[in-house]
């Protein structure tokens, strides 16, 4: 099953189902106009929320999301592909996570030479197992080795219990 729902000018989501799990891709800006009520029918099922294409979340969007998570208590939920802006919300507002499990996040690197930013996907399972997060990587744009982690690992992964 694949459905796309246009919710407003700034936000929409796409739902697909595979292997007994609903995968919900969130796209755009989560603000006071974001309406998740049509997803409540999935309560009790396995749900993955994919945040990769969320471009912004404002404080009213946080509240809307937290209230939505509250409605889904008891539902097995995982957050996948969380970009830095979603990780920031999880660290600032712990209830943003609700009872969900975070499966993967992106960590940001910025190149000192050319200012290029690239993100690396990290599995939270690997991180919990002791994966060492590289402080510097090679820039895919200018090939310099001065691409540094934009942030502090401890601060960034503070949401991991």
């Amino acid at each position, binding site marked *: 099953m694949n459905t796309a729902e246009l919710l407003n000018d700034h936000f929409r989501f796409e739902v697909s189902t595979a292997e007994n799990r609903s995968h919900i891709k969130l796209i755009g800006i989560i603000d006071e106009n974001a309406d998740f009520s049509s997803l409540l029918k999935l309560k009790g099922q396995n749900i993955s929320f994919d945040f990769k294409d969320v471009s912004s979340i404002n404080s009213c969007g946080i509240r809307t999301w937290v209230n939505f998570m509250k409605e889904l208590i008891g539902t097995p939920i995982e957050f996948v592909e969380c970009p830095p*802006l979603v990780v920031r919300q999880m660290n600032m507002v712990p209830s943003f996570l609700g009872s969900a499990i975070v499966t993967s996040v992106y960590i940001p690197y910025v190149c000192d030479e050319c200012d290029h930013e690239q993100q690396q996907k990290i599995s939270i399972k690997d991180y919990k197992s002791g994966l060492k997060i590289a402080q510097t990587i090679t820039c895919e744009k200018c090939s310099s080795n001065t691409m540094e982690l934009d942030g502090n690992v401890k601060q960034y992964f503070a949401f991991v219990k």
Partner: protein
Amino acid sequence: MSLVQSRNIILPTSATGVFSKKEAASLIASGCSHIHSSQLGQRDPLAVMTYQSIDCHQTACYPWEKSQGLQQVSLDSSNSRYTLINQISNSLQIKPTTQLCDRVTTCLEELFTNSLFHAYHLADGSEKYNRNESVVLNANEKILIEFARSSEGIFISVRDFGEGLPFPKIQNYFRRCYEQRDQSQIETKNSGAGLGLYVVFESASHLKIVSTLKQGTLVSCWFSKTSAFDPNYFSFNFFQGEIKK
């Protein structure tokens, strides 16, 4: 308070030392309106500027507020805010997918909505505009924005001509946002979520608020290029007084 006593206090409402954001928020909640987090303590140049301005009964003007190439725009409606945020972001030449862009644009959104929906009140004290409706401000209610970029970071300021933001209200914000880590962290009674200032405080390296009752509020922020919180380069200052151009 032991936290304060272990560091330097110049005035009853000021603290210098090295603080985490949570410690600083705790100080603000307990009445501290000037905090300079730096290993230099009282010798921190920004702290010196703050104390000199307090001595002169003036509002401090920090180096980034005098940036070269300062640009000014205004906001007059809620519907135009996302377009304006994009314009500012483009003018600042920050790449849309970067953390710096996210921090700056998120704070602009929070400061815009605070000014649009919460700054202007009716005669009975209730908020004039409803968050759930489109707002077009009157000519005397416009919101003024200044911004600039340097090699070290980005400066933005947002000024409204509303009711003003009394310090006790800020204390309450910080108390709720930092002491409550469950759903009570979020405001449910009002039209806003009550997280805007918290988001700005967490995102900016330096935050200054100037407020005058019935004349408005100016929020001025400096964002370092790097996203990692640096406890050696962070300040919060609240001034009650004249908002200077």
